[in-house]
């Protein structure tokens, strides 16, 4: 039997392992930032890639936030684009309404909070009824939510004048504003003239904050409770965990992080409309999470970057572009999940690290089945 000294040693080793994994993600993000930012500063970057930098950050944040729902809490959300949409519209509305009344930086920081809060609120509203149920209801409801919110915002008109805010779902005329009033949301035309506050640096900072929130949450009391409800709901109840509360916590945090991604997106475009926030985008984010490995944050980051950049980088292939894209998807899928590939990876790892290497392949396989 081991003595207490070895026990604390083991706990310390586990902590170091977690810390290493967490730091790796920060290092990857900061490393990518250093390289790309150097390229921007020295002018060695194509205008295509330069234009992609902020969208890359948007999708990385979206993928990380969805991974919190799919990988950590074990639920399926098919409407994360809807939460991005809510975050984007509410923050763009805020920024336009405030205008130049506040300094740029302060206004943008507040806009991020507005977007995150409104998206989080929608997350709670949807989660309260749905997460009490057992089964795949969340997938169905979020799918519907994404479509409803898109169509609702398509017919929404809003403006501001000296009397305050005006809303209408019919037309701009129905707002009944004073002639000096400003119209901000113009129905299907969306919101134009949002200040372009999003930069690559801001995007990276938001990614780091997202990583911090998700990683620190996972390694805390709340995170263990969330994962326990994923692994075995009945057992979690039997040890006194309020299952619905923790599923709701994970879902609303995830929704509000997706809202942040929306804020970043909205403040990068001259004109914001709902077209981009459709079902396809929700599925795309889910593809990042699944291909990167469910529950694997590093994988989500890498998959989001590769799969966002790739279709743009392949433009020179013209008609063959989507064909190559599809093949890349399949190759990543095989590399991540095929038993032979898992075997090979664990063998490589054991050769490199020489300790506990053989167990890793199995662990990953089990994560996949979860």
């Amino acid at each position, binding site marked *: *039997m*081991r003595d207490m000294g*070895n*026990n*604390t040693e*083991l*706990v310390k*080793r*586990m902590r170091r*392992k977690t810390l290493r994994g967490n730091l790796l993600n920060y290092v990857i993000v900061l490393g990518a930032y250093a390289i790309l930012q150097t390229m921007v500063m020295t002018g060695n970057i194509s205008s295509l890639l330069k234009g992609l930098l902020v969208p890359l950050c948007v999708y990385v944040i979206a993928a990380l936030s969805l991974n919190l729902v799919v990988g950590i809490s074990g639920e399926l959300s098919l409407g994360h684009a809807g939460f991005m949409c809510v975050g984007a519209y509410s923050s763009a509305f805020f920024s336009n309404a405030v205008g130049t009344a506040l300094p740029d930086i302060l206004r943008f920081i507040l806009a991020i909070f507005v977007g995150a809060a409104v998206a989080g609120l929608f997350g709670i509203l949807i989660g309260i009824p749905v997460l009490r149920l057992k089964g795949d209801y969340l997938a169905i409801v979020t799918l519907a939510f994404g479509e409803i919110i898109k169509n609702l915002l398509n017919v929404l008109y809003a403006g501001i004048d000296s009397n305050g805010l005006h809303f209408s779902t019919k037309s701009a005329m129905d707002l009944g504003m004073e002639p000096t009033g400003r119209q901000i949301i113009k129905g299907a035309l969306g919101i134009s003239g949002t200040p372009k506050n999003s930069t690559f640096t801001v995007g990276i900072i938001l990614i780091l904050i997202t990583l*911090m*929130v998700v990683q*620190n*949450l996972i*390694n*805390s*009391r*709340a*995170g*263990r*409770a969330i*994962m*326990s409800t*994923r*692994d*075995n709901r*009945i*057992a*979690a*109840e*039997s*040890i*006194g*965990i*309020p*299952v619905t509360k923790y599923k709701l*916590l994970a879902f609303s945090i995830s929704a509000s992080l997706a809202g942040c991604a929306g804020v970043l997106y909205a403040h990068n475009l001259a004109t914001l409309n709902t077209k981009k926030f459709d079902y396809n985008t929700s599925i795309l984010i889910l593809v990042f999470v699944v291909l990167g490995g469910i*529950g694997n944050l590093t994988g989500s980051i890498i998959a989001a970057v590769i799969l966002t950049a790739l279709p743009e980088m392949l433009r020179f292939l013209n008609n063959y572009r989507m064909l190559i894209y599809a093949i890349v998807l399949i190759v990543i899928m095989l590399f991540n999940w095929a038993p032979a590939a898992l075997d090979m990876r664990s063998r490589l790892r054991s050769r490199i690290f020489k300790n506990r290497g053989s*167990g890793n392949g*199995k*662990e990953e396989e*089990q*994560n996949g089945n*979860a």
Partner: protein
Amino acid sequence: MAMLEVNNLSISFGGLHAVDDFNLTIEKGELYGLIGPNGAGKTTVFNLLTGVYKPSEGIIRLDGVDITGKSTMDINKAGVARTFQNIRLFKDMPVLDNVKTGFHNHYKYSTLTGILRLPKYRRVENSIDERSMEILKVFELDSEADLLAGNLPYGKQRKLEIARALATEPKLLLLDEPAAGMNPNETAELMETIRFVRDRFDMTILLIEHDMKLVSGICEKLTVLNFGRMLSMGTTSDVLNDPAVIAAYLGE
């Protein structure tokens, strides 16, 4: 006062009286066995005691407090912990975290404290780690604390389930067929562990078991269920020699 007092407990599924007029009294520190042929309603009794099912009649009192009809979560908070017939561990979490999750309602800090890593986070986590390792050590699982629970061998998974239940600091521990699927050596070892848990944690234990060697070896009192009704109860040797019990098990 009795640790567990069950009066006139009944539940029906449609027309089937799964448990009918069931009575049970367990004193503090007792090691009590609940036995009976397959389908007698033993696990249903456990599910009633832990709030998985709501009884259609009857009262359950834990240490004098009425816990009838409360939720599983609240009953655990009141002091009842259980293990499952088919093991239910958090398979994709490390062994240590399975036990740490059990301490959920005893060592608290807010979610925000966890996300922002305030000083309280490290302090409380240190205490949880220490307590969890202590419990794992009792079950000789401490050297495997960093493995995923799903990768443990079967016998150790059963032990880990008991360890996790103990982490909720219960007054009453319910074990649902703890020796199922174990070989004679593992069963003998398990008997030692159960006895040790009772003495070390001053625990009251109610267990369901088919293995008569285990039952007669460690249980002080028994209740026998058959077709949802109580067939016999009393001290272990009396019950096992009761002609009605022998008839129920072996046929007449």
